[in-house]
């Protein structure tokens, strides 16, 4: 088998997002920022979101990490921006199921778009944490700030 299986994980879209991350940088006017660490490798991800009218108006991340954690963060920002907070939380949950190898609804799969490709990490259990890091950070952020209705 050897390295052939690696192609399942490191698909072109994922390599592209790792190499050219979208929405990477600081967010001015952020409603909240959450930093999470991957305790096994020390990688750090910072996720910042601006919430407006119950929606994620802007979403950015900073930090360093492996191909999977960087690509997953980048894909997350492209998929969840402009989503209503409630729907974003559902999609975070769906993503979390997906990377654990569980099946998700077609609707969720559609809405996750390219981010659903990260689902192949389920075949590489040691790397699930890398894929989940940014999504967990955003979930925590929404947990803290999602109910504030300040416009």
């Amino acid at each position: 088998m050897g390295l052939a299986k690696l192609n399942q994980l490191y698909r072109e879209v994922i390599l592209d997002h790792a190499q050219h991350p979208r929405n990477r940088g600081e967010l001015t006017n952020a409603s909240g920022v959450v930093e999470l660490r991957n305790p096994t490798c020390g990688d750090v991800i910072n996720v910042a979101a601006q919430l407006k009218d119950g929606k994620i108006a802007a979403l950015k991340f900073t930090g360093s990490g492996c191909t999977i954690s960087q690509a997953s963060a980048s894909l997350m920002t492209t998929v969840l921006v402009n989503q209503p907070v409630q729907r974003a939380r559902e999609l975070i949950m769906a993503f979390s199921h997906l990377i654990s190898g569980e099946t998700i609804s077609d609707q969720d799969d559609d809405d996750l778009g390219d981010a659903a490709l990260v689902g192949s990490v389920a075949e590489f259990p040691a790397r699930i944490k890398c894929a989940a890091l940014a999504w967990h950070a955003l979930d925590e952020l929404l947990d803290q700030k999602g109910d504030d209705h300040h416009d």
Partner: protein
Amino acid sequence: MDKGLNESRKDFPILDQQVNGEPLVYLDNAATTQKPNQVLTAILNYYQADNANVHRGVHTLAERATDRYEAARDKVAAFINAASRKSIVYTRSTTEALNWVAASFGNLVVNEGDEIVISQLEHHSNIVPWQQVAQKRHATLKYIDLTKDGELDMASAKRQITDKTKIVSIAHAANVMGVVNPIKELAAIAHQHGAYMIADGAQAVPHMKVDVQDLDVDFYAFSGHKMLAPTGIGVLYGKQDLLEMMPPAQFGGEMIDFVHHQDASWTQLPWKFEAGTPNISGAIGLASAIDYLNQLGMANVQAYEREIVAYTLPKLLSIDGLTLYGPSDPNKHTGVMAFNLAGLHPHDVATGLDMEGVAVRAGHHCAQPLMDYLNVTATARASFYFYNTFAEADKLVEAITAVKEFFADGIS
């Protein structure tokens, strides 16, 4: 022909398997070693023939279990050349041993304004307990720097260890930098300044002959699971007079002399530290592991590992874009080889190697201050033991090259 030192591979059936469709190449021995049949059989035999609780009860099985548990202690004492069996305290692990010394002995001898000296290459288990002591006692925690090559800088050691220093605690062999530190020399410096010398032997005892009296260390800690024994058994060696003055870290059954309603007195060494039912089968497994290592001969184990390092290290260094941490001179490097590939995260490297059947560790190796010092977040690490073969070293090098190519194609 290529079957590990003394054809030892046959004793480790776990090594004979396929992982991801490739033969397993287990190179994560610094994390934990595999266990030979002899050790597994000793544990099985104990449970099938002798199992009972120790030091309580007058029946025959209790007597046998106690005898075996205590005979294991004698074996440990002889293995590291302790002056007395009373100097050997069983613990759960290196981590527990260092925590006990820090909490019980450290808090006893360290006072406000004193210093505790460790180094930049320590494992968290030899950092965090001392941070706790330093905070509690209002003492200063100081770090010995490394040379460019990643060795302990002895000039820095002489500057950092002063008359205010009460504790010097250093890894005997390093779990990332792959160096062996001059513990005997450090102990002499520490003692000149009236400080106590503690060594973390987790990566040393499995790989070389250790003589605690020759090193003149005051305390010495190691783990069974990194030297063929099961998890959950470790050792704290201490000079007898120091163990006498050190209060127990835990209290309960086994460790008491007499319990009154309001207070109690402790029994004698080494049992005063062993509260509750201990890890009896672990101690018996450790004794069997020591028998196994003695049969191989620690000098042979060390010589074999040196050969495999001398073979592997230059091959690794010749891989374009590979950075090796620690000395590039194979004579100064142990079988612990940490590295990074330019432009690649070690997690991605380790996943790639795993697909080739090669098990290495990737991460900070419980040495985050060292990662900071090296200015990396993480590294990959291959670590060898005597059952690894030269063919496996070749496989490591081939797999690294293949992973590099995979990502070069995939990313560019």
